[in-house]
């Protein structure tokens, strides 16, 4: 599938300006932050065994009107691996996630600049068809949001609108396969006609995952998929993510450090719209180089 042989960058240079410093200047000089955008350096930690890059985002900025939400973020997302975005609320991690399948297009006044390269195609190119893109890049949302339709219809909707299924039988196969991959088949196979909204929270979220994989995407974006779930449902979804990693490139935004540590191979720490530090999950959690990352991970704040 992937032709790119790029490896995840691993500069690991000392930072020129800490986020602290920029914050302070921003507080006194208002728009001063932007002047420092170009100088800000993300701490990049190397992988021992370089991973194949699926998505290469370069210099991505997001502005909501006059407010800049994301400052020159460059990340390489490894293929068939889980990348976790962590950081306090409002740090831009969800904003960046939504750039990848262009969900920010639906927000008024939101301007995304920069390049997001997936296998040589720029996803951020406005002439690209978002419908095709979203078939390739699926998304799972924070709150389980099944359609108020039957379980079958929930999963069948994607294949149906894209015209993937050849006939009814094929559609049934796709639905069964998707539900099986989402680990939900056994629980719902006898009640496919019942409304998806009647399932438990964890089941609903897995139904949403099944719905996302029914259109066979290459990438699955998950925006805090477990934040509305109880610990047991969370464990099920996490186990599912581990299984899905074998076939899909997964990007997950999470507020739970423990979850990031458990499920991801790569971790990116965002703070106030900057990508502060990124690298192998183990390295980030055991030996963070940036002060803010260390404090966030050890629970000093956030």
């Amino acid at each position, binding site marked *: 599938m992937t032709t790119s042989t790029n490896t995840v960058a691993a500069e690991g240079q000392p930072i020129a300006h800490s986020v602290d410093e920029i914050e302070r200047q921003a507080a006194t000089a208002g728009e001063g932050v932007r002047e420092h955008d170009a100088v800000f350096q993300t701490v990049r930690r190397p992988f021992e065994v370089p991973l194949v890059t699926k998505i290469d985002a370069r210099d991505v900025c997001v502005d909501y009107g006059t407010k800049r939400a994301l400052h020159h973020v460059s990340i390489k997302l490894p293929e068939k691996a889980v990348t976790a975005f962590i950081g306090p609320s409002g740090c831009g991690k969800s904003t960046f996630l939504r750039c990848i399948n262009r969900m920010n297009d639906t927000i008024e006044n939101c301007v995304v600049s920069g390049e997001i390269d997936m296998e040589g195609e720029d996803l951020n190119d406005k002439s690209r068809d978002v*419908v095709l893109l979203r078939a390739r890049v699926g998304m799972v*949302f924070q709150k389980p949001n099944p359609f108020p339709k039957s379980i079958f219809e929930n999963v069948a*909707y994607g294949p149906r609108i*894209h015209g993937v299924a050849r006939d009814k039988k094929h559609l049934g196969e796709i639905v069964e396969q998707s539900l099986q991959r989402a680990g939900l088949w056994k629980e719902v196979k006898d009640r496919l006609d019942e409304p998806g909204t009647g399932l438990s929270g964890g089941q609903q979220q897995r139904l949403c995952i099944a719905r996302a994989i029914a259109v066979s995407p290459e990438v699955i974006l998950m925006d805090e998929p477990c934040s509305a779930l109880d610990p047991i449902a969370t464990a099920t979804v996490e186990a599912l993510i581990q299984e899905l990693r074998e076939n899909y490139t997964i990007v997950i935004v999470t507020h739970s450090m423990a979850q990031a540590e458990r499920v991801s191979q790569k971790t990116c720490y965002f703070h106030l719209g900057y990508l502060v530090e990124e690298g192998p999950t183990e390295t980030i959690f055991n030996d963070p180089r940036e002060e803010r990352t260390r404090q966030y991970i050890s629970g000093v704040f956030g």
Partner: protein
Amino acid sequence: MAVTTDARDIDAAGSSSRKIVERGLARRKRNEVIFKGIGLGAILIGISLVAVLFGSILYKGVPAFTQATLHLDVTFDPAIVNVPEKPVQGADENDADYYERLLSWQRRLVFVNWNRVIQDAIAKVVPAAADNARDAAGMVASGERVRLRDMVAEDPSLIGTTKAVSLVAAANIDVWLKGNIDRSLAQSKQQLTALQQEWADDLYDRGVITMAFSSVLFTNVDSRSSPATAGLLGAMVGSIMMMLIVMFCAVPVGVMAAVYLEEFAPKNRLTDIIEVNINNLAAVPSIVFGLLGAAIFINLLGLPLSAPLVGGLVLSLMTLPTVIIASRASLRAVPPSIRQAALGVGASPTQAMFHHTLPLAVPGMLTGAIIGVAQALGETAPLLLIGMNAFVPNVPTTPIEQSTALPVQIYLWQGNEMRNFFEARTAAAILILLAVMISMNAFAIFMRHRFERRW
């Protein structure tokens, strides 16, 4: 010891602040009770006003659903109904000739002395009627003569036979028997002659006159010469036509406008202006829409006066803002997560709209639309300006024929000079209008429950 002193200080401070809270407690409770009382009072006042309104309409209107009716044996005496055989179309006769013969036969039928037929029928129960033609003819609503004529026109074999027929009594008989006129008034001020008064009481006691269900209210059109047989059929058909026009004009246009404004329109100055104007239009007095309709549909486009088509279009314009506002509100009430979910699996914005958001908004839209249509049904002012307050004793068969409408009919009856008869008739018409509206609203509620889905 310092520690105990501190503890005591804190205790003292604690108990004093507690006292302050306790002192305020009574006042807070009192305020709560007062507010609850005021709220309850407001609701009670509202309910009692509605009860008074409905009570008075019911009190006045219900008696009008029954009407003094004479049950007579009518003899179609060939001496009086002296018409030739009803013409039959000959095998070699063309249509024009046949209709000419038929028309002349019908003309003969019109000139039959139907009052005499009625007089003879009454004379069978009150022999004195045989000598008092005017009094006898005045007992029965004048429109009933036409009914007897139509019976014969339809079935000429009735001639020479006697048939039991229920004839609606004249309005004045009804008024007299229902006690809607002061019987102690001097005879010179009475609407009925002394003979008629006597006969009415006598026949009522004997059961020849009964208070029967007033079916003419539903089967007849308005009438000025025969108030007792004046009905609402024309007005009801006119209102139904207008309602259908409103449903097919205002609802689709309103829903599509709401969909576009809510989901697809860019948020800029122009759409802001449109939005403000829609909200303002909802508050424009309805009579202004009547002026607009008169200027555009009648003067500019040359559509006929008093036509349900024009009325329906005017009411559509009036209903449009209501439908748009209700539809937008119900679209906005659909959780954005559903739309995002659809977009997330690659649905286009139009697909997300029509597959997910719109179906979920349908119950709310239906409610808004039906309430809008019900409101239009009861609207009078704009109809006055497009000529629907004309006296139209006719059931419209097409929307461009002259017609009247239920609320306008109520307005016309309310102004009728035969007050003591039409007051009850008006209230009955109001009851019918209310019944239609309540059933429409009930339908709206039913539809909402039917289509409502939880998420």
